[in-house]
């Protein structure tokens, strides 16, 4: 029996290779994502481990990887503290660090370097080793700098920015003056190699102090190296005895863990995102396996019957098909894993384009990746092949004697009946979601309904798709005459086959259409919100939501025609006894007027020195006017603020907002996150805009936008995400194309004699190619119509469920039309190879085929 299975696999190489391709791609994507995300984690773990000393002294409550976007403590320690620590017998070396957040490099072309991806880190170079005893930094070229006018950049950033040693580098500074220049004197990198795309700006200690601490001889953190035989715990315990209040000593291991956790949160989002698409690819691949094996089993029914007649049991016939699937899955998974390894490099290249560099040496196949990939590839293939395999076992032995090669397929009635019941259940789940039935979030109800209905429609596609195919037949016949009519007939010849093939494409298009409706609604909602709540004439914000120097606002205030510049900053704080920190908004006295805040209770005037709570938050947490909030800020500072008013829900403020002076009271660095600009009466908007742009010009970080420009920026961000998702879904569509190629190839093979007959009675090669192409288009159109219909329904329902955020429904009919056109193109492309093969068939050989 085993010999027969291997022979079978060998004899049907081409057909199996095509369906194996579907599994190859699915597994490749899966293993590629796994390899990539492992590499991603390892890259960051390596950097974190390699840059952390045995112990660290820092402002109490400071989170290591916050990047300083939401408040940087202005607290520092003096050199005396460093000396005291250095004198401790447990401490081998204590080195003061100066970390400057918010500095950016302007590249040689005047554009911001990096920014949207990995962070830019500016700091002083120290000789302190990391916890493994190695150097933290390694100089690659040139020398280390001296003073504030000389810097060393990491090698990668210097190259990307187009700077060479000796060049003058432009830097954006986070406080005070907007920009400064320094000479590039060397390039370096983290000792374990690479920076994962982060930009490093390295000063010497006096240089960093001049730039970030106005020249004060002080430090933001202190790195500790334990003396020989002293554990991290002992080191920290000893250090605590000499620390000033508001500072804490932390074990290196803890810092590493914190950083890794913070990184993991961010990396998990990427991983999950990519894995979802890998899963979609695998499911689409499974459809193709089902279909290919169904066709193979049908074409082989006489052989199966012969086996049965010769004494093979049902089980043996079924098992032989499954074994064949297993051999194919093993082969396909192996190729897929290899391909995935290459794909991970492709993903890495893609992410490096947005600033996340992954060391190539970390992109390896781990045991778990290999095991998971094989498991998924094999299990999915076997499950998919199970139904066709059972059908093969059911072939009656007498079929071997019959002349015709038709398997009894039974009626579609049972399928229709069960499918309809399941569809009703799916619809009920969706209704439960809309009605807000308890037990699960609305989106989860909807998700269950969507997933179930997608699979059910796939199963029912031979029935549901019939009208679409009939329409195709009619239209093709009208447009293309007899070849068109023949194509329409062929597509309807085996509805199961056509339906299953179209379903693979349907899944991709359903998702693409759902996303299109969501994105369209998102953009429309943004426009709506911006229209309602964008009250100032201009807003100046960092493109990456990073804070910037208050000097920008100072200069804008001086622009002719500007009446008011209202400033907002955000920072992290724990409110009362809560464990996790929230982002708190801080706004100056004019903001309530600029933003047209309306008071529901009390006063929303920030000038009153009281907190303003947004309506929803007040409702959720039960805040009332007169309540007192205690804000816990890093450095062990506690600030109490009284609630002065509840504002009518407004998206331009945070849930909890305080007056701007709270920032300084909390010991945080004063910077701005957003500036709202109001014009003086009679000022010319265009002229003022030009002047404001000129103020922001030296720092590409800050963008000045009017209402339309602001909406446009957000729409641009939505589009970016949209195109990324489209790109990832393209794989599912490519797999679906392979499915169409496969089905058509098998159909052509099956109809060899018919093709010979058509050719002999006068069908030209061109007409034959057109017939096959149109059949392919019919399959693609069926998939597209079903997919877009479902996608439209899902999209609309999702918008209903998420209507709090997605206030406006927008159906992008233009885009859907484009999808339809793409589906037709997909059909045409999928038919190229089968059509050429069919038209090259020797007429004589084709007619005499058995």
């Amino acid at each position, binding site marked *: 029996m085993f010999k027969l299975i291997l022979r079978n696999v060998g004899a049907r190489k081409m057909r199996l290779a095509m369906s194996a391709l579907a599994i190859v791609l699915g597994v490749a994507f899966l293993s590629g994502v796994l390899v990539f995300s492992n590499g991603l984690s390892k890259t960051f773990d390596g950097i974190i481990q390699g840059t952390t000393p045995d112990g660290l002294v820092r402002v109490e409550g400071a989170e290591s990887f916050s990047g300083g976007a939401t408040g940087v403590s202005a607290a520092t320690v003096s050199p005396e503290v460093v000396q005291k620590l250095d004198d401790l017998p447990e401490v081998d070396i204590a080195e003061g660090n100066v970390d400057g957040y918010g500095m950016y490099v302007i590249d040689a072309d005047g554009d911001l370097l990096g920014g949207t991806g990995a962070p830019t880190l500016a700091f002083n170079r120290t000789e302190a080793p990391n916890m493994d005893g190695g150097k933290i930094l390694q100089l690659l070229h040139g020398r280390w700098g001296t003073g504030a006018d000389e810097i060393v950049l990491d090698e990668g950033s210097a190259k990307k920015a187009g700077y060479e040693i000796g060049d003058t580098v432009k830097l954006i500074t986070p406080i005070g003056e907007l920009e400064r220049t320094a000479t590039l004197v060397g390039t370096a990198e983290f000792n374990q190699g690479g920076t994962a795309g982060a930009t490093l700006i390295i000063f010497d200690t006096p240089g960093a102090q001049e730039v970030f601490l106005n020249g004060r001889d002080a430090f933001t953190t202190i790195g500790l190296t334990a003396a020989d035989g002293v554990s991290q715990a002992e080191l920290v315990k000893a250090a605590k005895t000499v620390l000033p209040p508001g500072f804490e000593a932390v074990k290196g291991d803890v810092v590493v863990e914190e950083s890794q956790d913070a990184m993991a949160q961010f990396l998990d989002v990427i991983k999950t995102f990519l894995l979802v698409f890998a899963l979609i690819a695998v499911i689409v691949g499974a459809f193709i396996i089902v279909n290919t094996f169904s066709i193979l089993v049908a074409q082989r029914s006489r052989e199966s019957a012969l086996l049965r007649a010769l004494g093979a049991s049902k089980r043996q016939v079924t098992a032989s098909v499954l074994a064949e699937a297993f051999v194919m899955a093993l082969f396909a998974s192996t190729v897929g894993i290899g391909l995935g390894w290459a794909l991970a490099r492709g993903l890495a290249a893609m992410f490096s384009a947005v600033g996340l560099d992954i060391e190539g040496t970390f992109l390896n196949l781990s045991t778990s990746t290999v095991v998971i990939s094989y498991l998924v590839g094999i299990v999915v293939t076997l499950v998919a092949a199970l139904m066709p395999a059972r059908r093969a076992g059911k072939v009656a032995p007498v079929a071997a004697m019959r002349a015709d090669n038709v398997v009894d397929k039974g009626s579609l009635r049972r399928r229709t009946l069960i499918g309809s019941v399941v569809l009703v259940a799916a619809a009920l789940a969706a209704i439960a979601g809309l009605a807000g039935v308890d037990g699960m979030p609305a989106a989860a109800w909807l998700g269950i309904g969507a997933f179930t209905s997608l699979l059910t429609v796939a199963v029912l596609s031979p029935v549901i798709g019939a009208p679409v195919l009939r329409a195709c037949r009619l239209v093709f016949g009208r447009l293309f*005459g*007899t*070849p068109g*009519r*023949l194509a329409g*007939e*062929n597509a*309807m*010849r085996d509805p199961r086959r056509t339906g299953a093939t179209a379903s693979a494409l349907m899944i991709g298009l359903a998702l693409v259409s759902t996303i299109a409706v969501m994105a369209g609604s998102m953009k429309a909602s943004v426009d709506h919100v911006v229209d309602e709540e964008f009250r100032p004439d201009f807003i100046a914000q960092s493109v990456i939501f990073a804070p910037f120097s208050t000097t920008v606002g100072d200069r804008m205030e001086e622009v002719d025609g500007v009446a008011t510049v209202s400033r907002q900053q955000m920072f992290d704080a724990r409110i009362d006894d809560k464990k996790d920190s929230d982002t708190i908004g801080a706004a100056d006295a004019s903001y309530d007027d600029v933003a047209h805040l309306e008071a529901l209770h009390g006063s929303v005037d920030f000038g009153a020195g009281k907190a303003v709570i947004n309506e929803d938050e007040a409702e959720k947490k039960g805040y009332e006017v007169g309540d007192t909030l205690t804000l816990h800020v890093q450095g062990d500072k506690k600030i109490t603020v009284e609630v002065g008013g509840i504002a009518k829900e407004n998206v331009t403020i945070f849930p909890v907002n305080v007056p701007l002076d709270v920032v300084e009271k909390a010991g945080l660095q004063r910077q701005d996150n957003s500036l709202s600009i109001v014009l003086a009466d009679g000022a010319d908007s265009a002229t003022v805009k030009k002047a404001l742009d000129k103020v922001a010009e030296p720092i590409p970080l800050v963008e000045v936008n009017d209402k339309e420009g602001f909406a446009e920026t957000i729409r641009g961000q939505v589009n970016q995400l949209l195109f990324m998702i489209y790109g990832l879904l393209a794989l599912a569509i490519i797999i679906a194309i392979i499915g169409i190629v496969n089905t058509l190839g098998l159909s052509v093979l099956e109809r060899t*004699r*018919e093709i010979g*007959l*058509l*050719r*002999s*009675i*006068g*069908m*030209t*090669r061109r*007409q034959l190619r057109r017939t096959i192409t149109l059949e392919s288009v019919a399959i693609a159109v069926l998939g597209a119509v079903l997919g877009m219909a479902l996608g439209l329904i899902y999209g609309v329902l999702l918008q209903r469920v998420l209507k709090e955020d997605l206030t406006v429904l927008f159906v992008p009919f233009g885009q859907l039309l484009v999808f339809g056109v793409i589906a037709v193109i997909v059909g045409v492309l999928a038919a190229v190879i089968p059509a050429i093969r069919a038209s090259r068939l020797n*007429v*004589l050989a084709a*007619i005499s085929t058995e």
Partner: protein
Amino acid sequence: MTSPAVTTSATSPGSAAARAIGLTKVYGSGESEVHALAGVTLDLRAGEFTAIMGPSGSGKSTLMHCLAALDTPTSGEVIVDGTELGSLGDKELTVLRRTRIGFIFQAFNLIPTLTAKENILLPLSLAGSSADPEWFDAVIGTLGLGDRLGHRPSEMSGGQQQRVACARALVSKPSIIFADEPTGNLDSTSGADVLAFLRRSVDEFGQTIVMVTHDAVAASHCDRVIFLADGAVVDELARPDREQILEHITALQAAAAARQGA
């Protein structure tokens, strides 16, 4: 039945509807070289019902395939309805098959997705032209297919299917019809019906038909029987009966056996 005033061919009766001149066909090369046709020169006269007979491997099918523009000879020339085939490309050959040649095969003669009527009109619709309705009705009437036009092949008997195939071959008024064992898959009654119809289309419509067969009964319906052996024409009979044909076949087989024995 009244014969409609139609001529089925541009060629006048008695002249050659198709000619083979020095046809050879060689398969393989070197040691395994097989001469399927070893120089056949032959005129197939218009308005005649010709049978080509011969034992298996005599080259009768190869000869027909070459004459019908389905296969290309190794050397020699085929002329169909005044057109030399040697210089034609695939496209021209396809058009030639569509307009001037009709086919009837042994089995699998119809497209399963099309109705009988659609099958009959297929060559014309592929050419983008339509049938002469009078002629169509005449053909259908003669074949007794009037009540079957809306049926698909799977709903018809083998004899009915073969009659539809005959109608398809006739409806485009080809210069010549090639039939490859048209009764091979049919029971004797259905076979006789088909043969009678082919005979009538020669007699009443002036159609030229060439039939490959090894059935002496089938061949006895023909005006002329050509015998092939080892790739060459060895004999021919005019208007023979069944016994004459059988005698000839026996004689040819005896001669072949003698050659092999020698």
